[in-house]
């Protein structure tokens, strides 16, 4: 009994110390990581729409949509900072759609897909299948886009999410 209490206490103390250390490290690094992500996103946004002059942010659900305007104030497109569910959890990605409803850019910002298998979603082969699709297209695995064999969950999850995001962008943001 005495031994059991000692074991529990030692593990508890180590766990508490580790937790405190991690919380401190997180406090220090979290703002820097967030700033890095923001800078990366803004660079990507300019990559999608080089003419962007200013943008408006709109939160829909848990996701954020950036409506981009050129210097004349015309809507040139929308970039969604959105999420898909893949094989290894959530996939964070940015989807850029121009004013005609064409997908012009796809950038995976964070994912937990299997290296060498599910991470094909970050490669040009998969991106090329998606870029150029229009809001009016079905965007469905096996219909107008092929899922990639071996990575059906990753690519299929992406396609389901892209369809959903296209509906939001097409119906709520481009129509305005």
């Amino acid at each position: 009994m005495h031994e059991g209490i000692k074991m529990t206490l030692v593990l508890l103390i180590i766990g508490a110390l580790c937790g405190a250390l991690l919380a401190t490290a997180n406090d220090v690094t979290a703002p820097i990581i967030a700033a890095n992500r923001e800078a990366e996103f803004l660079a990507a946004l300019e990559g999608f729409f080089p003419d962007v002059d200013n943008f408006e942010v709109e939160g829909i659900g848990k996701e954020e949509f950036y409506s981009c305007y050129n210097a004349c104030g015309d809507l040139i497109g929308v970039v969604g900072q959105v999420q898909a569910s893949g094989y290894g959890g959530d996939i964070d990605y940015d989807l850029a759609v121009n004013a005609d409803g064409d997908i012009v850019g796809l950038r995976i910002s964070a994912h937990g897909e299997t290296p060498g298998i599910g991470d094909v979603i970050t490669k040009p082969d998969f991106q090329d299948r998606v870029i150029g699709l229009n809001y009016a297209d079905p965007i469905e695995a096996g219909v107008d886009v092929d899922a990639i064999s071996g990575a059906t969950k990753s690519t299929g999850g992406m396609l389901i999410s892209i369809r959903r995001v296209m509906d939001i962008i097409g119906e709520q943001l481009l129509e305005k």
Partner: protein
Amino acid sequence: MTTLTQEFSKGIVQENPVFRLVLGMCPTLAVTVSAMNALGMGISVIVVLLCSNIVVSAVRNVVPAKVRIPAYIMIIATFVTIVEMVLSAFAPELFDALGIFIPLIVVNCIILGRAEAFARKNTIGRSIIDALGIGLGYTLSLTLLGVIRELFGTGSILGYPVMGTAFEPMGVLAVAPGAFITLGILLGLFNYLFKRLGIE
């Protein structure tokens, strides 16, 4: 009792984690696509190994033997997570390149192996020397693999092209089979060398 110099150099030669103990193979094969990745991974392992060896050695008389493994895992996981946060904040490109292999340092058998085989039986000072030796041995081995694969696989070293325009890169060295081939050749070479030199 071995001298401190022997304690340090054993990690680089006799007990080299990659070429002698053949431990931690998963990241070794996966991240050595380029010299920079290999170096980054090696340094991350040195940091985690150093911290975990120090703490494991410091608590060696306090932690009951029955729960030592969960205690070690918790200590190692904490340091790995800190390294992950720091890399993500200050070296995002390297962090993206190393990806999943940073969190996987937690289960890298070199680190748990040194805690179990060395740090829990030795003083803090010796554990530091051991961590530096083994960590440096791992880093050097990884960098050697990375340099060879990058040089022949893409014709550059640390991102700088060095092979001239006539060089046709051997693409196979930059992908997974190339890692096995390079590792196999180097393992054979070192085994031969060590036998010739009489090092066991």
